[in-house]
């Protein structure tokens, strides 16, 4: 973290912001401010350079053509690689998650090269689109409560040996590989298929990103009454509909 403020970078809202992804940015911002941090939020459009000195980078979902354009521009830019090399935390959703991997299938049906920042490879599913509420257990090492989210994707993502599945689904599809995994992560880069937005449904994940960025083990508590009520409702709804 440089000087006294936390730099939160929202990558390409002009291309990758289809499913309320701004929500993840707003939740990170809000929870950082509640802890007394100054937050500098930088929204970077796809004709601008990715700053390399951010603390947390958020990347959202998008449709097929914007996803390809975003991958092309991010590869050309190179800023995200430098930011990760500098120790930045990256959190990505759906199309953004696929872009961070080695490759995915683009809107032309071709294999598109990703950024290789996360050891995953994505393909496109043949079956029905995965749509609906998801309930999953987050990897034990992260010490987080159940994951609740909403998925809406055709992609299938295989997690390689240099990443770990972020969660194991109880209800829903997650990575769509049939092995019950959902999302992937390494030390600093996270990817998930969960919308909702996922950080609004799971504020403890936002706190995890803050702790990693600040390099601290704990944060002052916040009043999470409405977050908790929403979580309970969504977890109950997913359980009932199953």
């Amino acid at each position: 973290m440089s000087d006294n403020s936390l730099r939160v970078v929202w990558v390409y809202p002009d291309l990758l912001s289809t499913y309320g992804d701004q929500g993840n940015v707003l939740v990170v911002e809000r929870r950082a401010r509640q802890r007394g941090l100054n937050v500098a939020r930088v929204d970077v459009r796809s004709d601008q350079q990715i700053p390399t000195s951010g603390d947390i980078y958020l990347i959202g979902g998008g449709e097929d053509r914007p996803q390809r354009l975003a991958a092309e521009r991010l590869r050309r830019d190179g800023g995200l690689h430098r930011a990760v090399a500098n120790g930045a935390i990256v959190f990505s959703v759906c199309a953004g998650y696929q872009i961070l991997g080695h490759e995915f299938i683009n809107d032309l049906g071709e294999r598109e090269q990703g950024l290789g920042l996360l050891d995953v490879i994505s393909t496109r599913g043949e079956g029905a689109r995965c749509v609906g509420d998801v309930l999953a257990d987050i990897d034990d090492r992260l010490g987080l409560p159940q994951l609740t989210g909403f998925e809406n994707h055709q992609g299938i993502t295989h997690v390689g040996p240099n990443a770990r599945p972020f969660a194991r689904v109880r209800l829903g599809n997650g990575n769509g590989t049939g092995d019950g995994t959902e999302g992937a992560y390494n030390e600093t880069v996270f990817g998930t298929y969960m919308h909702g937005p996922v950080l609004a449904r799971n504020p403890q994940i936002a706190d995890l990103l803050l702790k990693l960025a600040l390099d601290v083990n704990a944060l002052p508590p916040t009043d999470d009454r409405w977050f908790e009520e929403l979580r309970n409702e969504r977890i109950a709804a997913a359980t009932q509909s199953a």
Partner: protein
Amino acid sequence: MAGNTEPLSPRAKLAVTAGKAAAAVSRAAGRGSGSVIGGKVALKLDPDLLGRLAQNLDVVLVSATNGKTTTTRLIAEALRASGPVVSNALGANMPAGITSALAGGTDAKYGVIEVDEKYLAMVARDTTPKVIALLNLSRDQLDRAAETRMLAERWREGLAGSKAVIVANADDPLIVWAASSSANVVWVAAGQEWKDDAWSCPSCGGVLQRPGDDWGCGECGFRRPSPSWALSGDHVIDPHGSAWPIRLQLPGRANKANATSSAAVAAVFGVPPQVALERMYQVQAVAGRYDVVHFQNRELRLLLAKNPAGWLETFSLIDPPPTPVILSVNARGADGTDTSWLWDVDYTRLSGHPIFVIGDRKLDLAVRLEVAGLGFRVCESVDEAVQLAPPGRIEAIANYTAFQDLRRRVGN
């Protein structure tokens, strides 16, 4: 441009009668107005019925993400200056509902038809319209699967050979992309408050530059066409540069934009703007929207907002603080079951209003407002919200099925 002179074929006639009978049965069974089921029966008996019903009408099609029901109503009012109009005024906007509406107006000269975005190309093919009005395209909860740009692309392909005059919003890049394959376009500067679905050039994927009201792509040259009609404050500017005052009972900038497009449509049929605009004043509420109702000795204005662009336009028309606001959101089938879109809505615009939250998904709204740093009360029902609201007329904003729930509860 004649009225109905040619008689319907016996098969078409039978289809119309059977459709009407089915609609009557459906009404008797308490299933709403019966217009959709009647249309479905009729279309099954005669698949070409829609085209045949339309062939003796001067047809106007209206499509958009937001404002199509209201604009259809405004155009219908304007054209009544020149002849009888048949219209799907209640918003049954897919082929069956359209067929049913047209079957009910055998003496009409004009058919003014609202069309669901997904069916526009098909209905345009079947009804050979004289005019097609395209107002705006943005992300919509009802249609998660269809990418907004893909929809514009489908319109573009579907309308390429049409002989219709396209009346299109020059301020919406996706609309311009959809319309500019047509030979005969009347551009209307109707404005666009919501811009987040059009930062990317629909033609080449470049980033659009948007200085002021203008827009253009730096990479391929796709840019805003120069309009012949414009909304300017409270006036419609016609192609001669004359300004005509807009007087509407309907509130808000978006409805002034709808009136501007409607005046441009009416002019195609020779109805002058001052006549058209005067007639539009009569429209008070459209399918319950904008209606002011009395409930528990309080006044409530009912406002429908189905998607982020709709919420944004609605925020700009409500009375200023400290007017109390009730927000209601559901996520049933017709609303789309994902509530993520709430995060695309800038709720900080409600700062200063006492806010009351209801609906199936009130907790999603609560978290949304909490993160926006706003104060609010979560209530179990509209009754409770009204009881807690401080004095003054209440603005009640709801998405699709929540709006229906609200109307049912307040007896509208």
